[in-house]
């Protein structure tokens, strides 16, 4: 029976905590700011891409079912 290395199993929880948890203090290299900028930029891209995807029938129309 093969055993997944425990380090690999725990890596999910490690990365989740180190990068997604802990005290958040804005530093000079403000990684958080870079992420937020990206989110604002891409929200517009998302709205456009979802509409296009629905038109091209790559995504089912989400509005009608609700």
């Amino acid at each position: 029976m093969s055993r997944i290395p425990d380090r690999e199993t725990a890596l999910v929880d490690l990365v989740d905590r180190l990068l997604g948890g802990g005290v958040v203090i804005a530093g000079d290299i403000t990684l958080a700011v870079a992420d937020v900028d990206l989110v604002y930029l891409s929200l517009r891209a998302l709205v456009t891409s979802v509409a296009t995807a629905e038109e091209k029938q790559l995504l089912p129309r989400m509005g009608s079912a609700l």
Partner: protein
Amino acid sequence: MKDKVLAAPSDLDPLASKGPRLEDALSRRINADPESVERGLVQLVLTIVELLRQLMERQALRRIDIGTLSEEQVERLGTTFMELDRRMQELRDEFGLDEEDLNLDLGPLGRLL
């Protein structure tokens, strides 16, 4: 360092424990080079689509719970969500992303769930 696993099935399903592609998890935290920006954008867009999908599913479940949907509506919703789930899997496969890759920290957006 001590083993961090306290309890897990001895025949753990490898898919369940698959870690994030560290490269992806880190590339969004550190100044990304141009090549990984596009990949990062795809990752971000799909993460948001996945978030929306989960939000909608949860809202639908709440409405089913309080009984404000007809049987027909439930059936239609369920089929839509199944299709959406299937489609998300295809998109993930197409871009070589797994579920953990779409678990980006969206800050305030992420707390909608």
